[in-house]
């Protein structure tokens, strides 16, 4: 019987385990290994350079400015998507649990639809809207005589990142809204009633009763958005190209990594070793941030 139990455990775990080890764990470990070599992706790994790739990414005159600018852009991108998603996500979830359930479900379905649309389609539809000459938005602004606001959103260095962040938030809002709704449904009605009886306003009730209750969920969403923001690639690549224009104004770790690994860097030759070092630094940031966020989330749910 004992022996049989082990056979079951092994045979049930094996398919998933093997797949996961082969295509997640093993690549992760080889990624670390490659980062210690000067290597262009072809031929054997022989030119061991120690931490030189890391030093090159972090401190060199040629490359470090790209790296740090990309990190800043990722953080900026995170901040904008996070603010938009939390403000509108919480507001909409709050309204969704307060209205009639059947109608609420219809709205939830509608809010989720943009998530179902591929990024390529989202990117092109918005590029078309924002096209400076005949796009819908410029035409609309012109008709309203708001010419001052009529700027090339995707073509100006200052506005490109926030614009793409808004589009990302628009497209990715569905899941956070649902997760907030799931958290708010579970708030006991008595707690809110009690606050009401004590004369608390709606806003006060939200701050002192509802928010502490959804805080763990809020931190989960923050983690998801942080991981997402540091993985940002699709929209930037499609709307601004490999060079993350204008003049690298939208360059993030994802696009910098892509150019370093798969070419498109112009003068600098592609380097798989440097790219994996870059990827590892990206990992590190995401790992540290998500560990902190998960610990915060644990303590927030314990305090409930």
């Amino acid at each position: 019987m004992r022996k049989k139990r082990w056979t079951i455990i092994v045979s049930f775990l094996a398919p998933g385990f093997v797949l996961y080890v082969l295509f997640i764990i093993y690549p992760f470990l080889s990624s670390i290994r490659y980062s210690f070599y000067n290597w262009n992706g072809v031929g054997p790994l022989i030119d061991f350079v120690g931490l030189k790739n890391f030093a090159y990414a972090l401190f060199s005159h040629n490359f470090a400015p790209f790296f740090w600018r990309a990190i800043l852009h990722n953080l900026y991108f995170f901040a904008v998507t996070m603010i938009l998603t939390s403000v509108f996500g919480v507001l909409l979830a709050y309204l969704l649990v307060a209205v009639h359930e059947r109608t609420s479900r219809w709205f939830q379905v509608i809010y989720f639809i943009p998530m179902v649309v591929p990024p390529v389609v989202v990117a092109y539809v918005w590029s078309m809207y924002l096209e400076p000459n005949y796009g819908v938005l410029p035409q609309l602004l012109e008709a309203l005589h708001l010419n001052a606001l009529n700027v090339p959103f995707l073509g100006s260095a200052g506005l490109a990142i926030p614009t793409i962040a808004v589009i990302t938030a628009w497209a990715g809002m569905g899941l956070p809204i649902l997760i907030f709704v799931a958290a708010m449904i579970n708030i006991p009605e008595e707690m809110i009633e009690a606050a009401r009886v004590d004369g608390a306003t709606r806003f006060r009730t939200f701050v002192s009763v509802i928010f502490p209750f959804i805080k763990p969920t809020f931190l989960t969403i923050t983690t998801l958005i942080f991981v997402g923001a540091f993985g940002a690639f699709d929209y930037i690549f499609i709307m601004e190209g490999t060079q993350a224009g204008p003049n690298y104004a939208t360059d993030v770790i994802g696009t910098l990594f892509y150019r370093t690994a798969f070419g498109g860097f112009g003068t600098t030759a592609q380097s798989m070793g440097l790219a994996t070092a870059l990827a590892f630094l990206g990992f590190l940031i995401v790992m540290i941030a998500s560990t902190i966020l998960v610990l915060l989330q644990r303590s927030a749910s314990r305090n409930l």
Partner: protein
Amino acid sequence: MRFKRPYIAYIILLMFAIVALYPLVDMVFMSFKDLPGIVSTPFSLPTKWHFDNYSTAWIQGNLFSYLINTAIVSVASVIIVIFFSSMAAYVIARFEFRGNQLIYLMFLAGLALPIQMMAVPLYILMKQLYLLNNLLSVILIYSASGLSFSVFLLVNFIRSVPKDLEESAFLDGASYFQTYWHVILPLIRPSLSTVAILNFISAWNGFFFPLILLNDPNRMTVAVGVLSFVGQYSTQWNLLLPALVIVILPTIIVFAIASRQFIRNLTAGAVKM
């Protein structure tokens, strides 16, 4: 929590519903216009409905092959994720053995790894396995990366249901496999359908790995195929828009069929976050 006068709530909800849907609905209407109509009168309905936009885009865009490839990738990776993750989750949630927690943690760690950062070793690995320009490469990557979230979800779900049903199945002489097949799988159906939909959507929409692994036009998925289509017909919106509409139809249909159930499962705690 209910409002006494919910009108304002409804107005705000409706406004956001319009924000969410307008670009997509607009895209469908515009796809039936001719090029001058798209550019000069973007806000009006088409004066003449150009259904020929669709036939031209369909033929010139190689869309059929992109759609078939994407369907193969999405369906295959969803099936793999469903079976592999539910089997693993059953063992992790119900069997006590040495290394149980370690294996669970290993699966969870994947949640914090942006998989595209592993593009270099994965590219090399696929090259060594002779899987470049083969749909299997993308299927394997999507299945493996889908496991983390799925195992996490299913382990939590299985732990939250009482063991009674399984125990009575054992008393009736069922084997572990029969218990998994006849008791566990039906029991975790709500979570499994959530897993299936989320993985289907992300496989269908996936961009990065098809971009670096599938360069042969006959092997491309829609996300990358449309990109090359745009390269050729950059400003011919009357051909691009129908292509974009065709590309989103399958996911919209899948979601339309499953949406009510999906939303109910998510908000009713099939996902604990």
